[in-house]
Every structure is written in C-alpha cells, then in structure tokens.
C-alpha cells in the first residue's frame, strides 16, 4: 500500500518535472522574443510603418498612371505613360480622355472628374460632390486658387504648390508645371510601346490578321518590337536572367570540379599525412566561412563588376562546402572495391576512377544539383551587390522606389526561375542517380 503511495508521489513529481520543462520552453522562447521585440524596437517599427507606401507599392504593382503635363512657361502639353519619354503619346494623337480645344485641354478622369488646363496659366478641377477648384499660376505670386481656409486633408496647399489627390487621380500644380495623373489597371505597354505599329493590336490580329507593318511579317516584327520594348526591355531582362543562371551554373560546377580532387587530400583514407589533411580542411573552412558576399567584394577588385566575378565568388564559397561534403563521402567509401581494382595492377588514376568515383557519384550528383538550385537564389543576391543579372535590376528598381510594376515583374521572373531550376534539378537528380548504369561516364 505504501509502495503505491510512493509510486504515486514519484509519478506526480515526474509529471511535475515534465510540466516545468514544457512550460520553461515556451517561456524561454517568449522571453527571447520579448527581448528581441525590445532590442529591435518593434513598437517604433510599427509606428513608423508607412501604410501609404505599402498601398502605393501594391497599387503601382498592378496599375499604371498616365501623366498629362503642361509646362507652365511654354504652355506645351504632353501625355506620357508613367511620365517616361518612351511612353509619350505623339502630340496629335492623345488618348481619348484628353481633348484639345483651342487653348484648353480637357482631361476626363472618369466618374465625372474633369480637369481643364486653360491657356498656359489657368486650370480648373471639377470634383463631383465637392465643387470646382480653380486657379492661376504666376511667376511672381505663385499658385493662386479659390480654396478658402478650410482645406480638406486630401488637398495640400502652399504658396507655390497645390496638390489634390482623389479617387480618380492626382493633380499637382507648381509654378513650373501642372500635372495630372490618371490611374489604369494593368501593365501598360508591356508588349509594345506606343511607337510600335503593333500597339493596340490583339494576339489574334497579329498572328492571323493582315500585315500591319509592310516591311516585316507580323510575327517577326511583333517579336522584335516586343523583345526591344524600350520600357520593359524584355530582351535585356532575359539576358539578366540568363546571366544569373549562368553565375549559378559556372560557380557550382566549377566548385565541384575544383573540390573533387582537393577532397581526396582532405580524406583520411586517401591522405594519410595529417598535416596535408589538416591544411586542406582549414582551407575549405576558410573559403566557406568567408562567404560568397565577401568574396564578391574581394574579387570585384581583380575582375571588376560582372557575372564572372559573381560566378567566381560562388565557386570559392562552394569549393569549401563541396570539399567538406565530398571528403566526408570519400571517408565512407568501401575499400573492397578499390582493392579489387588495385589487385589487377591498375594505375592510380584508374583505381580512383573505377574504385572510388562510382561509389561517390550518387552523393556527389545529388549535392551538386541541390546547390545548383540554391545558388540560383544566391546569384540573385550576389548580382545585386556587384555582379549584375536580375538581382541588380531588381535592387536598383526597388531603390528608385517608383517602378513597382517592374519590381513585381522581376520578382515574378525570379520566382519562376528558381522554381524552374528546382524542377530541373529534381529531374536531373532522378535521371542521373537512378538511371545511370555505368557509374558515371
């Protein structure tokens, strides 16, 4: 009976200990997270977070804006998609919602919003449900308007500047220029810029319709205009993607080819000399520990910016990783096979070729392919820091902080590229490792 009692007490204390342990774990994690929250200033970050930036980013990534700009000095009016030269409408063929009437330009923003440029110094904005805002611009007195003192918060007004933001669009007036932005859904000019004869034609029309440009067949002309699209630059983006994959490929394969012979020097069973082994292993640790990022900087001095530098940076780092993994694989090889080949009087190289290589090929291939895939991602980052490729395009597009639709485009391409490499390396892995009967060629 008393034995049962002790058993009970023991069980209770056992559960009690486990309880402590299971509570201690989450508590420790929470405490760490709390420390991080303080150290990283979560509160401040939340406070500083700019929802409007996020909104602008998201909105910009699926829509585009068309600028209607009047130079207040010359009175010249231009209409340009995203305000870029390459997206400028020819002066005589503005879009349908911009109408030129004598000295007036009437801009229909939709939903009843109408902005009118009058002469080269007047403007008006008819906002349904609010009224008409009118004003003139003078070099001396700045931007004058009919707004009273009671200005709603979607209008920003000062002596030399007036900005109005509504659901339909945005208007900014300064002494130099008057600008109207109208927003549209989609990625305009994604296929063809305005100067291309194929702009505005559907796919069916281009493929099966009559010749649009008499000099070229529709298909070749359209492809060339698409490829050389000055705003989206598909051709150059494709090059950049290729460069990124190239860096990953050269880096990974190069590293594997360098690491394989070195790995023999780091494996106990192939290099009995302790000093050599130790030395080679520390070299592996070093190149791996330095990290591709720092290699990129170091190598940029010798080779300058470009994909080769990126590829070499990957090569250096991965030589370390591969060297370590391969030498571990080599230490696990089965001596019997080597001895079998050796006993026939095979030269040393043949001994390795037939006694060792077939044994480590599966490990080797699967590691190399895995790294190839993950290096595609690394190459994006390395490119951003110096090399080039899609990473550079992406970071630069992000830093300028206005071409979010391009950013979105690049991100989509990067994700597709990585997914593709993932798929490819999966296929190769299955093919090469399972199917190969000759133990490698």
């Amino acid at each position, binding site marked *: 009976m008393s034995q049962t009692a002790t058993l009970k007490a023991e069980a209770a204390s056992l559960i009690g200990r486990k309880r402590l342990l299971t509570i201690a774990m989450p508590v420790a994690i929470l405490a760490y997270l709390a420390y991080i929250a303080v150290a990283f200033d979560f509160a401040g970050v939340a406070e500083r977070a700019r929802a409007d930036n996020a909104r602008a980013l998201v909105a910009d990534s699926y829509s585009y804006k068309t600028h209607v700009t009047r130079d207040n000095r010359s009175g010249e009016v231009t209409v340009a998609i995203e305000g870029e030269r390459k997206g400028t409408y020819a002066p005589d063929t503005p879009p349908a919602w911009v109408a030129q009437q004598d000295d007036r330009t009437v801009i229909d923003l939709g939903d009843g919003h109408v902005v009118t440029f009058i002469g080269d110094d007047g403007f008006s904005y008819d906002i349904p449900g609010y009224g008409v805002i009118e004003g003139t611009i003078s070099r001396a007195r700045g931007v004058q308007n009919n707004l009273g003192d009671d200005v709603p918060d979607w209008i920003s007004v000062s002596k030399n500047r007036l900005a109005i933001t509504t659901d339909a669009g945005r208007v900014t007036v300064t002494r130099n220029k008057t600008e109207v932005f109208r927003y549209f859904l989609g990625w305009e000019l994604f296929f063809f810029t305005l100067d291309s004869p194929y702009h505005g034609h559907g796919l069916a029309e281009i493929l099966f319709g009559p010749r649009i440009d008499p000099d070229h067949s529709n298909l070749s002309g359209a492809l060339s205009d698409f490829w050389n699209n000055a705003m989206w630059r598909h051709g150059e983006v494709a090059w950049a993607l290729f460069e990124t994959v190239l860096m990953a490929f050269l880096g990974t394969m190069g590293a594997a080819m360098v690491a394989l012979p070195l790995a023999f020097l780091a494996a106990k069973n192939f290099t009995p000399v302790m000093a050599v082994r130790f030395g080679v292993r520390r070299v592996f640790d070093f190149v791996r520990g330095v990290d591709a990022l720092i290699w990129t900087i170091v190598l940029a001095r010798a080779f300058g910016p470009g994909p080769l530098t990126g590829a070499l940076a990957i090569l250096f780092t991965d030589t370390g990783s591969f060297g370590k993994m391969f030498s571990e694989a080599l230490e696990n090889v089965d001596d*019997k*096979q080597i*001895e*079998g*080949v*050796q*006993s*026939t*009087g*095979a*030269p*040393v*190289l*043949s001994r390795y*070729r*037939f*006694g060792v290589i*077939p*044994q480590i*090929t599966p490990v080797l291939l699967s590691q190399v392919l895995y790294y190839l895939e993950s290096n595609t991602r690394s190459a994006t980052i390395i490119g951003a820091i110096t090399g080039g490729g899609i990473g550079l395009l992406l970071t630069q597009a992000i830093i300028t902080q206005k071409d979010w639709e391009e950013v979105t485009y690049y991100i989509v391409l990067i994700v597709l590229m990585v997914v593709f490499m993932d798929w490819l390396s999966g296929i190769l892995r299955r093919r090469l490792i399972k199917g190969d*009967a*000759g*133990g490698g*060629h």
Partner: protein
Amino acid sequence: MLLSVENVTKVFGRNTAVDNVAFSVDKPAFVGIIGRSGAGKSTFLRMVNRLTDATAGAIHFDGRDVLSLKGAEKRAWQSDCAMIFQQFNLVPRMDVVSNVLHGTLNRHSALATMFNLYPTSDIHRAIDILERLGIAEQAAKRAEALSGGQQQRVAIARALMQDPKIILADEPIASLDPMNAQVVMDALRRIHEEDGRMVVANLHTLDTARRYCDRVIGMREGRIVFDGTPEQLTTGVARDIYGADASFSEASTSTSIDALDANARAMMEEVEVL
C-alpha cells in the same frame, strides 16, 4: 622453380601475422592454404599480390623478384597475378562486362579508360570469358544485381581477363552457399586444368581442400605447420592445424553439399533446444 617463397614475414605492430613462411612450387599447381581464422592466410596472399608490403623475405616467380618490384613493374606483376576476394570486391554500380574489363586496366593508360572506352576485341573476349563461366546472359546487368555466386564468377572472369600466370583466391567461397561454392570451385579447377594456370587458394574447409587441391599448405599462427598432398591431410593433422581438441569434427568446417545434411541436422537440433 616457378614460385619460391623464402622466409617471408609480416609484422603488424607487435603481432607477427606471417612468420618466416617458405615453400616452393615447381610447376603450375592448384595449391590450397588452410588454417583457422587469423592464421595469416589472407596476409600472405596479399603480400604475393603486393597489396600489402612484406616485412622481410623474398618471393620469386618465374625469375621475377616479386617483393622488390616498384611502380609500373609492380603493377605489371599484379596484372600477371590475379586476385579473387571473399567479398568479390567488384564495383557494384557498374555492369558486369565493365567489371570484367577492369582486368585489362594495367594494359591501358589511365586516360584511355577514363571514359570506359575499351577496344571491341577486349569486350568480345570479356563476353567469351563470361560465357565460359556460364553467366554471359548477365553481361549487361549491374554487378550489384547479381547473386553472390554470380558475382564471384564475375570476379573470376575479371581475373581471367588479366590473362594471369597465377591466380590467388582468398577464401573465394566463404560467403557463398554450398551450391554456388561448388560452381565456383569447379570453375577455378577447370581454369587450372584447361589453361594450365597456377592457382593458390585460401580455403577454410578441409573437404574442399582435399577435393580440389594438388597440394595443401597448413598454416597456424603465421607459420607453416603442414605441407603435403591432400591424402596426407588426416584428421589428426587437421587437428594440429586448427589447434582443435578432440571434439573437432570435420563437418563443422565443411560446406560441401554432401556434408550439408549432417550440418542441417545439427542446426535443427540447436533450434529444437532453444
């Protein structure tokens, strides 16, 4: 003298694995070496093939001073002296013919064989050899897909591919079942008889030694304790070699098919006792 072994010794640290072994053979013969585990049989064969270096002594074969060969000459000797292992020591991921072709590696430069490019005549010969050993149908399979007996025959084929003057076999049937063991031993014997090649085989069973060998050498603790014809190998002598007491029964070392039944019965008895 074809093969003469003079006071060969091998010391591992404090342990003398092979101790002053000396014997000679004057014409191609089928020599069996018996002895219990650790007697130094494997070490001795490995020294002959030069997989292991001897500590002292000399071996002469057909005028060659085997133990003093170096580099290319050593490899040339290895190519003349084929070795067959207990665990077959094939390259399991490669196909059978490629494994057999490894027997020609000494004749080609490492570079030439890097990409598995062997002359067609060699490939044909490899298949002929496989045919002779009755496993030509397996030619395209990976070695690892074969049964133990088949793998050992591939190993023999590789040895024959070397066109060796002497074949060393280190317990070639120890990992095989009795059925396969017989096939393999028969093959070795046939090679000896038909081609006139010398065979030295480590064997761990008396009856196999008796049945296949022209001459039997018994080793114990690194030394030769018996050297004679199979007929001279009485149970008493065997007791000496194996250092066994009176309870020594020949069947316990036997794997021949005839002996199987007795063996099986013994096993069954053990099961019953459990």
